[in-house]
């Protein structure tokens, strides 16, 4: 089950308004390679996992991604909460604003709402881990593209943290993959129930 701790994993304290940047960063909230997709992917894959270590890794990384979701939501909120209405159109923020105001809504930078189609839970322990390795790389690339879009250190610091977390997660999924391979290749005993004769 989940419990909420009233603090951030990494602090988000932004001084300068920048709705144009918020429009881009929202993609890590509800976009194809964002934190919501990541957490639902791993938390959904847990059930089909076969080794205790891979269950733990899926559970714990899935949980950490929720903390990252909160960070991204905080960044977007703080970047847009006090914007001057006269600047909305110039910032390219108008199409988001008319549907969501300065609220936070899970969608991509292009405005596509979040969908479960952004992730897979295949029920095959090897397939799921390969999916996760790819997912962490996609997230890392996205953070790199986002980091190129700003010089604001208040924004860059949390983005840099989040990017490095993707690299660490990739490593852990890689280790889980080895554990699952060993398990699947090992000698295991199955008991098959014989059907009764009619």
């Amino acid at each position: 089950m989940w419990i909420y701790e009233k603090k951030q994993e990494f602090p988000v304290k932004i001084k300068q308004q920048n709705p144009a940047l918020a429009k881009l960063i929202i993609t890590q909230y509800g976009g194809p390679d964002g934190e919501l997709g990541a957490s639902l992917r791993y938390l959904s894959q847990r059930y089909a996992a076969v080794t205790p270590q891979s269950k733990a890794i899926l559970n714990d990384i899935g949980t950490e991604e929720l903390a990252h979701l909160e960070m991204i939501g905080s960044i977007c909120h703080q970047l847009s909460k006090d914007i001057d209405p006269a600047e909305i159109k110039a910032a390219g923020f108008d199409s988001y604003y008319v549907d969501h105001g300065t609220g936070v809504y899970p969608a991509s930078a292009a405005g596509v709402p979040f969908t479960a189609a952004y992730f897979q839970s295949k029920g095959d322990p090897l397939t799921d881990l390969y999916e996760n390795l790819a997912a962490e790389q996609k997230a890392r690339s996205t953070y790199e593209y986002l980091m190129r879009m700003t010089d604001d250190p208040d924004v860059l610091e949390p983005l840099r943290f989040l990017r490095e977390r993707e690299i660490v997660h990739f490593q852990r999924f890689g280790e889980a993959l080895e554990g699952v391979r060993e398990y699947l290749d090992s000698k295991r005993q199955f008991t098959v129930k014989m059907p009764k004769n009619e």
Partner: protein
Amino acid sequence: MDRDRILKRLTVLDFLAVDLALYLDSHPDCKEGIKKYNEVVSEADGLREQYENLFGPLFSYRSYSKRDEFNWTDDPWPWENDFNFVVGGEE
């Protein structure tokens, strides 16, 4: 004691615990890692108690409510600028 200082130290310790725990998930036999993890958790525990005594509950339905008002609801909340601190470089 300064809220930002305690919160920063607690944030740092809890993060070490998260990164170490993820490592231990795939290295359950690493004694060195377990020792370090427990040290971090122990220090964080003490600091968490200090923070809660001074500034209010940190956990939903786990922390005591130590005042007459249910100050769990108090502003600021973590997604707000005022809640947070700048990490900087020094301890």
